[in-house]
């Protein structure tokens, strides 16, 4: 069952290396859910909220994204909110783990009422996101592959080693991931090694794949899970991370 909404474009301003683009809409998408917007191109484009407020939402988009070319007041046809987002109700200690470039759709999680720890991984210091969108109450761990900031190594290495990152996974009530989907099987195994019996949805992972229809019709967004193929657009795009461990 799909809702259609008309969003109004309000502003786009550079927030290097991205743009901050805000829309007004009656029902904005919660963290991990998305809108399919009729912007440029032959199919709609999924928009994940980087910030949600009572009158709308904002995305963070790369330069050149069609949302950055709108004129103020432009009306944009959107389908949604679509999909299943992060399920973090009643969680006390939230852990958010992300590659630097994939942080924006997780930003709304950082303003939840829970005690939150954020782990951000980047190749090098210059790739780390600017800190001003991260609330001061959030405990921040950074990881760089070259050691130019924070912990040295990869997410997998730090989750498997005796590190504060692994420690935060031990203590969390819920861990939300946003990484390149090919890494999830390995990350799922790291989670298993750190937590003896993780409950269902203890670890949740956002999968960003192409979603042309958002309606479960086109079958482009199929992904493999332990219990068979699922559609990112309607069964996800947030999945139980352990379900994504298809290698194991």
């Amino acid at each position: 069952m799909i809702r259609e909404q008309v969003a109004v474009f309000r502003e786009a301003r550079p927030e290097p290396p991205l743009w901050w683009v805000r829309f007004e809409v009656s029902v904005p998408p919660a963290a991990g859910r998305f809108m399919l917007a009729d912007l440029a191109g032959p199919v709609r484009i999924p928009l994940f909220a980087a910030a949600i407020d009572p009158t709308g939402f904002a995305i963070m988009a790369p330069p050149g994204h069609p949302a950055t070319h709108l004129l103020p007041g432009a009306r944009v046809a959107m389908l949604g909110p679509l999909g299943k987002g992060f399920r973090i109700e009643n969680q006390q200690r939230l852990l958010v783990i992300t590659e630097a470039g994939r942080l924006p759709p997780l930003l709304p999680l950082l303003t939840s009422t829970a005690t939150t720890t954020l782990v951000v991984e980047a190749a090098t210091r210059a790739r780390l996101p600017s800190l001003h969108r991260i609330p001061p109450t959030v405990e921040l761990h950074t990881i760089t592959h070259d050691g130019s900031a924070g912990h040295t190594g990869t997410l997998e290495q730090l989750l498997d080693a005796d590190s504060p990152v692994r420690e935060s996974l031990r203590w969390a009530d819920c861990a939300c991931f946003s990484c390149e989907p090919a890494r999830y099987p390995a990350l799922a195994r790291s989670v298993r090694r750190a937590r003896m019996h993780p409950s269902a949805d203890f670890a949740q992972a956002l999968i960003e794949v192409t979603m042309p229809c958002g309606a479960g019709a086109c079958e482009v967004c199929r992904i493999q899970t332990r219990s068979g193929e699922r559609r990112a657009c309607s069964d996800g795009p947030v999945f139980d991370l352990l379900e994504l461990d298809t290698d194991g």
Partner: protein
Amino acid sequence: MIELAPKHKYGLPIQHPVMPAAGVFGFGNEYHDLIDETVLGAVVTNPVSLHARKAARGPRFMTHGDHFLVHTGLPNPGLKRVLKEHRATWARRSLPTIVHLIATTPPEVAQAAQLLSGIQGVAGLELGLDDGAEVEAACAFLEAAREGHHPILVRIPFGDIYPLAEALAECGADALTLTAPPRARLPLAPDTEHDTEGLLLAKGRLYGPALMPLLLHQLARWIPRLAVPVVACGGITTTDAARACLELGAAAVQIDAVMWKRPNLLTEIAKELSNE
């Protein structure tokens, strides 16, 4: 009233000449809240096979200007599962459901057609052939599909009208869908890991507005020599284009992947045509 299967004992009457193409509308009522189905002639389901099929590996979607390539591998959970989940929707629907059957093997197609024979709401089958199918093989698939009691539409691949259309009409197809989208390839960005044949090319079927003028040419050429109704399909995105298909003699039109961008287009075109 439009009769899509005039030679069939039960026929396949539809009230309106517009329907979604196979593969764009899902199996059930995914678009229920957006689309007023009552202005449509029928609903064509996503492609289904007797047994479950998995999604294709490698890139499944790639844009090229206003066009795009889709390569899904026709994944589906198999006919029994689809029936379990969607037969109630088909039974409730006030208009005919046409089930699109993938031409995997003739015995599987025959078994699927039989399974579908008693299903309420299903008024016909659309048989989807692979590209480059030979005439005898295509006719064998059609024979198999006719082992159920439904009228059969055969969806002809874009490049195969010449060998297949007349032959299938003669072998007993009740109607033909012209056409499935053409096969195409696109260069992949050099850093892509998925590489289908040593070369960096994505494979798939091409969708987009350029198909429409190609379709109109084929309809003009072929409809006059085909003795069965033709359902037009390919890049139709305006009422003008839909009307042109009908004026060229098509009995109905299918709206394809443009639906994903503009879900209302299907009913807009249907309403505009029915007001004429």
